Each structure stands twice: as structure tokens, then as C-alpha cells.
């Protein structure tokens, strides 16, 4: 099983982007400056692993709140698909549509599977200044859980205190 834990991105500024997060809402990454941000790229709405992963994130949102961290998830699905998926799974954080041009933002984050036509299952934790603090790519069939995210948020908090 391949797993990329450290590509050459840590410490780099996260590429800014603006994408729809619903039929009438827009997600602009730079608006979240001042807070840690968790970006979760994922392959597809409705897939079992994506459902489990995002449901878990929803269930532990209060853990992210403790770091004032914002969570957003990104896939190539369209906004109406995202809305139906979010309503069915009870997800309250933004689901962002990397739909047109397809996968363009995922490609900027080196998180696109050209051969499949969907995003990687890739997690990014950004610091409040918008730099990539940590990231992890796991195979599409693997649910990464949230332990890596929480460790990264812990590490960031420890650094900012010292």
C-alpha cells in the first residue's frame, strides 16, 4: 500500500482559490486567514469511504473547534450533488465543488488523480497565515480518520506558544 506522508509542500503557502460551496454560496480560502484550516480533498460524494470519513469529521467537529480550526472538504462533484450528500449525511461544513474547470484546484494541490478523474484522498492542515503545516495522501479506499489532523493542530499550537 502506498502512502505519501511528506511531499515537498510543508511550509509552502497554500494556493488560494475561490470555488462554489453550494448553488448560491462561494468558498474563498483566504477569507479564513487567522484560523487554522483543514482541507480534505476526497474522491466522490456518496462513496462509502468518503461517507464514513466525512461523517467522522462531522461527529468530532467540536475537536476542531477547540483549535478554532475551519474544515472544508473538496471534490469534483457539482453543487447540487454536494447539497444532497450533505443533507443525507448531516454534514454542516462546506463541501466545495472543484467542478469547472474540473479538478483545477485539486491539481494545484497535487491532489488530483488524472487517470481516475477525481481528487485524491488528501488532507492538508494550514496554519493561520495560510501556510501548509502538514499533509497526507492516502489511497482512495483507505479512511484516514482524524488522528493526523489533530496531531498537526497540536503541533501547530505547541509551536505558536513557544
Amino acid at each position, binding site marked *: *500500500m*502506498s*502512502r*505519501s*506522508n511528506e511531499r515537498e509542500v510543508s511550509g509552502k503557502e497554500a494556493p488560494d482559490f475561490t470555488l462554489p460551496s453550494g448553488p448560491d454560496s462561494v468558498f474563498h480560502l483566504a477569507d479564513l486567514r487567522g484560523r487554522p484550516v483543514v482541507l480534505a480533498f476526497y474522491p466522490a460524494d456518496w462513496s462509502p469511504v468518503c461517507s*464514513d*470519513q466525512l*461523517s*467522522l469529521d*462531522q*461527529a*468530532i467537529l*467540536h*475537536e476542531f473547534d477547540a483549535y478554532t480550526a475551519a474544515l472544508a472538504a473538496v471534490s469534483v462533484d457539482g453543487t447540487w450533488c454536494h447539497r444532497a450528500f450533505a443533507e443525507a*449525511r*448531516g*454534514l454542516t461544513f462546506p463541501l466545495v465543488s472543484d467542478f469547472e474547470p474540473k479538478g483545477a484546484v485539486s491539481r494545484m494541490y497535487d491532489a488530483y488523480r488524472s487517470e481516475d478523474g477525481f481528487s485524491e484522498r488528501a488532507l492538508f492542515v494550514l496554519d493561520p497565515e495560510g501556510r501548509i503545516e502538514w499533509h497526507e495522501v492516502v489511497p482512495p479506499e*483507505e*479512511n*484516514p*480518520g*482524524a*488522528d493526523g489532523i*489533530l*496531531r498537526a493542530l497540536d503541533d501547530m499550537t505547541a509551536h505558536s506558544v513557544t
Partner: protein
Amino acid sequence: MTLATPVHRLTVPVTDRDHVRGDLGARFTLVEYGDYECPFCRAAHPVVQEVEHRLSGQLCFAYRQFPIVNAHPHAVRAAQAAEAAGAQGQFWLMHDRLFESSTGFADENLVRIAVQIGLDARRFIADLSANRYLDRIREDMASGARSGVNGTPTFFVGGVRYDGRPDAVSLIIALQRSAAAFSA
């Protein structure tokens, strides 16, 4: 590049804070993070009971709450019911009843179970109404999330996340291996 999947370890060891069946110092330790309304957890319940039965006297089984409330709307309520029963010394009676119940977890059903197992119903209702054990449930969820829980049920065998099949024989083999590795 091919790397082994990293090992996920239990970040908060089993102590007397936990609900345990068996002795804390037992040869084998099994921890479950579960959700009473999750169909996979409900399917795993008789499996765990079989493991407990077959390793009787040698196993410490701990159950921690991990309700996925957005998927299972009554899961937090059911977890609170178990904790409220625990406060009256009857965690495991309620735990088993919740997993075996087929009537759902509306409040009146939870109170009915509480009465059936002999709890002080007035206290039970007050505890649920006040969300008295919500913080404890969140502590369990925090320790689970930090230990690599990525769905329910997630088991830890000898403190390491178990990614194998959720059947009794596989779990027993994993428990025996973990104890052998520990004593080696």
C-alpha cells in the same frame, strides 16, 4: 514508494476510568469504540460477547463511546443512557440491552429499559435531561479520534488498532499474538 500503513496506537490507556468487563491487569486487552445505533457495532456485539466467553478470565474488555450523531440521530442519547446507567452501577446491563434492543432509542424506550434493569428512573431522566455525561462521551471521542478511530466499531487489541476482520476467531488470534509480542 511503498510504505507500511502506520500503526495506530491507543493514546489513552485503559484505566479504572473506563467501563471494563474483566480485570485491568488481564492477559488480553480489547477496547471498542462504538455507537449503539451503528449496524456494524450491533453486528459486532455478539462477536465481542463470544470473545469474552472464550477468553473468560483472561480478557479485559473496555467500551468507549463514539456516537456518529449525524448518521445516527439517537446515538448520543443512547450513549448518555449507558453512562447514566453506569453512574448507578449498571453500565453493562444497559450496554447489552441497548445493543440488543430492537425498539429504537426514543427517550421513552430508554426510560423503559432503565426501569426494567432496576435503575432509579427519576435520577436517570434527570441525568439525560441535563446532558450530564456529554463531556465524558466527548472525552471518549477525543481519545478515539486521536488514536485513529476512523469509523465504528474500531477495536484496539493490546493497544494497537485492529484492522482485521470483525469475527471472533480473528480477534482471538490477534489478542493472542499481541500478548505473545508483549511478553517476548
